[in-house]
């Protein structure tokens, strides 16, 4: 028998211990393979000129790899812990450190190879299904089945590399307990790392905040953000439990009902418990928040696109007015036949500015009303001392800049009649838009530069594609740098593709995070079943009732599964509140609906897990 045989026998004959680790590995390979399979699909190369998809999928693979790394490391830690007794025996028989490391390395390598094999086979089997799902979720892609040789090689190398790395790290995380502790018959209570977590928070949090203030957005900040999140949540749960424990003891309530058993139970495994809570809270927060956007983002594509591009086509010539008019005529001729076709020339006066992209413009009341008519918006009627502001980026409310204020106050225009944040050109084209009365416009336009844009629209804005835009550009002999021709469909297509892709990728990642939570909580509950059953069977012998035991078990679950969920729900509301200020559409309404769905799901899951866990413990007690 060699060490390799030994490792192989360990896995083969005690597969249950390795099962979780093995499944985590298989799952990681599977997810990574799915992403690379999609990312390298030949159909994407044709559609994706700006490589948006490539970047998204690349980011997704990185996230999934990082997550796999953490999850696998966690499960390695678990299976090493479960085998501490075997290691003590080996130690005493005289296995050297090198032999330990080799044994653990071999075990990891064997599991990794099988996981790679099975993960890839699963990936191949399911790739057609997942490509079909992707195709139906992401419009306009023909994701036919292809033999994914490159993704296969990539998966073998990258995931294989990851596994190799973990195999090399694994022996290091095996904290060598003293043999004497391992040989003792009684398990020891876990230590409370409150002080350690406090120190971690004190060190990491200020650094993270400092990096934020410095606006240092290098890779560093993300690492510190993650570390801060982890250490802070670990610390917070530690604090919560300690405060709760303190009050229970002070008030004497610890001696009422089963509180003593509940609290001492939690304390006995305090480190594992708090680790489980912090990990599932972080994952829950990510899932609960992202799910709102996964559902919401594809729903509001056309609304959001209209906010940044209100017309089917917009044309402007920056250099030659006559040529511009001719070209606009050509475009109009071409588009005329499309249903609901309308066109409008928007004339305005522009402040002189050296930079071509800075466009402070003044619009006459009549002109604006034409635009409003064109876009089905409300018309306005301004007095001579009034002005009206129009938005320019589709998100923020417009404000009167000092330059314009100085200019129009000279004409006695001082009163704001109102504003509309909806834009009248493509987002960002104008720097500011101010409407004044026709009379004032007459006088103002004398000192300003006259300019115009041409707007074209049709009943279905989404009609048309990037190809149509290219055809139009060819027709008018488009000259880069001298003129601009934009289409709604260009923005819509990009938004549509990106959002749907992000949703697809995001939902797969969310599912893997969910599985992550499940495995963390499962391993916490089930790896101690034997130990706990023994403890409870003693308590039952001295008079603990079944109902009381049920209550105690439910309490464990409330700490581990419900509290992290509730915290995560609150956190996700805060995150959604912050993001709302940055996005075009508000997701509050959807978040409310989602929260109800979450709560319902959590309640059902809680009831199911509670029943199963109670049954498992009862079976164990009464069978023994």
């Amino acid at each position, binding site marked *: 028998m*060699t060490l390799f045989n030994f490792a192989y026998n360990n896995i083969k*004959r005690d597969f249950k211990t390795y099962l979780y680790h093995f499944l985590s590995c298989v799952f990681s390979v599977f997810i990574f393979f799915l992403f690379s399979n999609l990312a390298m699909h030949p159909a994407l190369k044709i559609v994706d000129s700006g490589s948006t998809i490539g970047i998204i999928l690349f980011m997704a693979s990185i996230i999934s790899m990082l997550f796999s790394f953490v999850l696998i490391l966690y499960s390695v830690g678990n299976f090493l812990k479960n085998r501490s007794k075997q290691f003590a025996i080996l130690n005493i028989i005289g*296995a050297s450190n090198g032999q330990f490391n080799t044994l653990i390395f071999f075990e990891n390598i064997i599991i990794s190879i099988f996981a790679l094999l099975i993960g890839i086979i699963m990936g191949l089997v399911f790739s057609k299904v997942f490509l079909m799902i992707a195709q139906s979720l992401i419009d306009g892609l023909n994701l036919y089945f292809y033999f994914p040789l490159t993704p296969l090689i990539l998966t073998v190398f990258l995931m294989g590399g990851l596994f190799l790395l973990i195999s090399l790290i694994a022996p290091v995380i095996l904290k060598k307990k003293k043999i004497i502790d391992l040989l003792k018959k009684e398990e020891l209570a876990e230590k409370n790392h409150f002080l350690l977590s406090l120190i971690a928070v004190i060190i990491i949090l200020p650094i993270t905040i400092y990096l934020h203030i410095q606006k240092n957005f290098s890779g560093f900040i993300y690492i510190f953000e993650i570390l801060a999140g982890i250490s802070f949540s670990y610390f917070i749960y530690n604090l919560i439990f300690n405060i709760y424990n303190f009050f229970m003891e002070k008030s004497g309530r610890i001696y009422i009902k089963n509180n003593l058993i509940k609290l001492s139970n939690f304390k006995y495994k305090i480190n594992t418990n708090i680790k489980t809570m912090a990990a599932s809270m972080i994952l829950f927060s990510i899932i609960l928040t992202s799910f709102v956007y996964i559902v919401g983002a594809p729903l509001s594509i056309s609304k959001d696109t209209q906010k940044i591009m209100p017309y089917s086509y917009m044309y402007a010539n920056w250099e030659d007015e006559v040529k511009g008019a001719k070209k606009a005529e050509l475009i109009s001729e071409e588009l005329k036949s499309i249903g609901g076709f309308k066109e409008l020339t928007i004339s305005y006066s522009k402040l002189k500015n050296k930079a071509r992209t800075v466009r402070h413009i003044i619009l006459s009341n009549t002109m604006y009303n034409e635009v409003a008519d064109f876009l089905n918006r409300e018309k306005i009627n301004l007095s001579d001392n009034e002005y009206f502001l129009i938005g320019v980026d589709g998100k923020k409310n417009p404000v009167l800049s000092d330059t314009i204020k100085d200019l129009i106050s000279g004409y006695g225009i001082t009163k704001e009649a109102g504003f509309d944040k909806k834009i009248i050109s493509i987002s960002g084209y104008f720097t500011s838009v101010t409407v004044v009365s026709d009379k004032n416009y007459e006088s103002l336009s004398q000192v300003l530069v006259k300019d115009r844009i041409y707007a074209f629209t049709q009943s279905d804005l989404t009609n048309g594609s990037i190809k149509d835009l290219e055809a139009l550009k060819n027709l008018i002999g488009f000259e880069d740098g001298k003129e601009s021709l934009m289409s709604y469909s260009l923005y819509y297509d990009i938004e549509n593709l990106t959002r749907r892709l992000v949703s697809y990728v995001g939902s797969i990642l969310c599912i893997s995070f969910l599985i992550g939570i499940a495995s963390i909580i499962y391993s916490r509950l089930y790896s101690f079943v034997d130990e706990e059953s023994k403890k409870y069977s003693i308590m039952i012998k001295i008079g603990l009732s079944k109902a009381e035991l049920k209550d105690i078990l439910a309490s464990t679950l409330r700490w581990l599964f419900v509290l992290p969920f509730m915290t995560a729900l609150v956190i996700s509301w805060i995150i959604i509140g912050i993001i709302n200020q940055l996005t075009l559409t508000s997701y509050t309404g959807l978040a409310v609906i989602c929260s109800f769905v979450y709560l319902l799901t959590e309640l059902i899951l809680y009831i199911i897990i509670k029943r199963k866990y109670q049954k498992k413990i009862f079976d164990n007690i009464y069978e023994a």
Partner: protein
Amino acid sequence: MILKVSNLEKIYKGKISFKALENINMEVCEGEFVAIMGPSGSGKSTFLNTISTIDKPTSGSVLIAGKNPYEMNSKQLSTFRRKELGFVFQQFNLVNTLTVGENIILPLTLDKADIKTMKTKLEEISELLGISHLLHKRTYEISGGQAQRVAIARAVINEPSILLADEPTGNLDSKAAKDVMKLFKKLNESMNVTIIMVTHDPNIASYSDKTYIIKDGNIYQEIINRNDDKNYKREILNTMSLLGGDEIDII
């Protein structure tokens, strides 16, 4: 001299420090079969742990086959454990993922012995201990007495200088316990294995050549078998009941 213990002391530090062993001196010659007895809490297991590299003594020295294991680095220590020490525990401590045979040759595997040596040694030792028919069974398929014999086989396959046994019969019924003790005797006589065994049972201790009784961390008495088994056993019993006090209290 295979084991020489001088001025051995073990203090457990804590809020209240506790002196578990105090100034123990002991010498064991090659081929001796020594039993360590004492009431619970007397320090007998601590003594075994401190002389067997499991627990470090606070002061004093331990020499096994002329070498001090506490002065070794971890690599030397593991080699030392492999070559010089054999362990038998109350809970058997077999590796449950291995078959009986694989458990026995595990120390040879760690020693990188060649397959032929493994085979011959396994045959020899399993023959001697009467477990040849169990070699392909898994550890959960055999009885407690058989498991302990397997553990003994694993402990002696490397021909160690000392066999250390901590309550080897603690988990066995009296019949199985007797069988295991007969094996110890056999190993001691036929292979000249030096044995140091901790037990609380005078019947088990009476299989040895010499019994040390430990009380409150000190050696209280040394009882030697002068080729009179009956007398030896009586002497152990008397000393123990004196210490335990139960029988005397009644009077």
